[in-house]
């Protein structure tokens, strides 16, 4: 042991003053760490597939018999497929955000917090890493498109990936924002489930949002996930040859007091909300000791 040390000459290292380059390096390494950990955690990849598959094949096939009449011949699995593309990234993103709670519990957060870089770089790296991991997970579900009669196209694959990345980014930012305050794993998962589950159900991932009762229509319109699910469904339906009635029933436009919200605005809202929550997360982590 000691002979080893004698044969190796001292290598002097100089830590440069902080610059935007060191910040970018910090963001990149925090991002990469999430990917490395994801890669090593095979169990997580498998377990987080269970829920979306249940929704898609069990719920989808099961309810098919009831709904055949009202879907204008569209397979129910095809209908809920866009919703399932969303749910798969939502729950993975939640777990990604939870890793910051683990990091605190196992002390690793301190190692990052005491480095000569901005805390915002750590938080941004964490959110981008979580979002990337979640959308990679989402890609696995893209492989199931054929099973629900959705033909592949370059536009579909890129579009789904982009939307999943966006949704994953916003949910991770939300989770990291919550994690700045809630430092106990159990409470964190409890709070996240309590908020994300209802948002998912209300969003219209599993039902068309056209003729909802007033109270549900209201909740649906204020639920941010609605504005991620609708573009996803539009993207998938554009790839299919559906009758006009089918599109009208299954993918009606999202309206505010009768005004149809453009898809671009919907997407922008999800993005803006994600950025806002990322901003709050940065402020909260900066304020902490």
């Amino acid at each position, binding site marked *: *042991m*000691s002979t*080893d*040390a004698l044969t*190796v*000459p*001292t*290598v*002097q*290292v*100089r*830590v*440069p*003053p*902080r610059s935007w*380059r*060191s910040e970018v*390096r*910090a963001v*990149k*390494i925090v991002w990469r*760490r999430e990917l*490395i*950990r994801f890669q*090593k*955690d095979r169990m997580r990849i498998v377990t987080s597939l269970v829920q979306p598959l249940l929704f898609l094949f069990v719920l989808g096939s099961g309810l098919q018999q009831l709904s055949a009449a009202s879907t204008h011949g569209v397979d129910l699995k095809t209908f809920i497929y866009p919703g399932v593309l969303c749910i798969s990234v939502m729950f993975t993103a939640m777990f990604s955000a939870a890793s910051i709670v683990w990091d605190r519990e*196992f*002390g*690793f957060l*301190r*190692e*990052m*917090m*005491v*480095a*000569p*870089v901005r805390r915002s770089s750590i938080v941004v790296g964490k959110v981008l890493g979580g979002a990337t991991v979640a959308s990679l997970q989402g890609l696995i579900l893209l492989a199931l498109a054929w099973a629900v009669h959705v033909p592949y196209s370059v536009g579909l694959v890129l579009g789904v990936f982009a939307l999943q990345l966006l949704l994953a980014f916003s949910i991770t930012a939300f989770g990291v924002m919550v994690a700045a305050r809630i430092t106990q794993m159990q409470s964190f998962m409890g709070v996240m489930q309590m908020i994300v589950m209802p948002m998912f159900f209300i969003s219209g991932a599993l039902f068309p949002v056209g003729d909802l009762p007033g109270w549900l229509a209201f909740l649906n319109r204020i639920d941010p996930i609605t504005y991620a699910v609708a573009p996803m469904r539009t993207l998938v339906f554009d790839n299919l040859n559906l009758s006009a009635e089918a599109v009208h029933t299954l993918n009606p436009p999202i309206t505010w007091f009768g005004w149809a919200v453009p898809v671009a605005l919907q997407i922008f809202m999800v993005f803006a909300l994600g950025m806002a929550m990322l901003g709050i997360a940065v402020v909260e982590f900066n304020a902490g*000791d």
Partner: protein
Amino acid sequence: MTAPAISVRNLRKSFGDFEAVKGVSFEVATGEVFGFLGPNGAGKTTTINMLCTLTKPTSGHAEVAGFDVVTARDDVRRHIGLVFQDQTLDGYLSAEQNLRLHAELYGVESKVVKPRMEQVLRMVGLWERRDSQVLTFSGGMRRRLEIARGLMHSPRVLFLDEPTIGLDPQTRASIWGYIRQLQQSEEITIFMTTHYMDEAEFCGRIAIMDGGEIVALDTPRALKEAVGADRIRIETADDERAIAALGERFGLEATVSEGAVSFAVAEGEEFVPRLFAELDVPIKAVNLSRPTLDDVFMSHTGSTIRDAEESAAKNKNRAVMQAMAGRR
């Protein structure tokens, strides 16, 4: 003389109305191994946290490597290495990945990462295990890896908070080996805390901390000499009466600690025969010792470090119980 590596004036930290660090002042010279010795709860970690910019001081001033810990946080951070009291490794990553991540966060120039990593990993004897996941490491190996990581970016000051706590004697000895080796091979100042008396002896100078205050600060040798006296511990049939008698007959101030009556006298060897002849309380056993750091601690605080530890632990338990009761 070069500028001091650490200079601290009147540093204070309060948590609510509890004052954990009550205005400490000291200087550490470049290249020194400086130790903070004190029982649990003395405020050692809080002081380190302020010096390494993790906690803002309530008041006072501190400079590390020439930079103010409040106004030049990043400059301080670039020049210090840290080994925390609690483990802060990523268990899912390999040893090498942990060090690489650290090098990236500190902006270490890419081409020196590899050779520096080899150097620090060889030093702590983990080079062969660099590809193993940290989860598979023992407590001692993790500690060694954390020391290697703290050295990755060639810090000017290395902070070690209780680096040997809970480790087996062999690992403790090897950690002290690295610290001495470092002193020779790199220009580094080491600031460490410990509550092991025997380890404090290895430091160039030590500050004895108790209840948020520095009660003594000097080289271990000078501190022991200052106590001047030898320590005599006697086991008696009646401690109360023995203490009273010692006070009356010899004018000595004795206390009971760890089950024995203990007091200090100038020339112990000559005093023992008188003690047997003149004390009218039966003595069951006697023990004479040259001053140790325990005695230094005792003479400044009136209790042994172990007693202080126990009462701190009791307080802590009480606080934890109260916190839990409050939450329900």
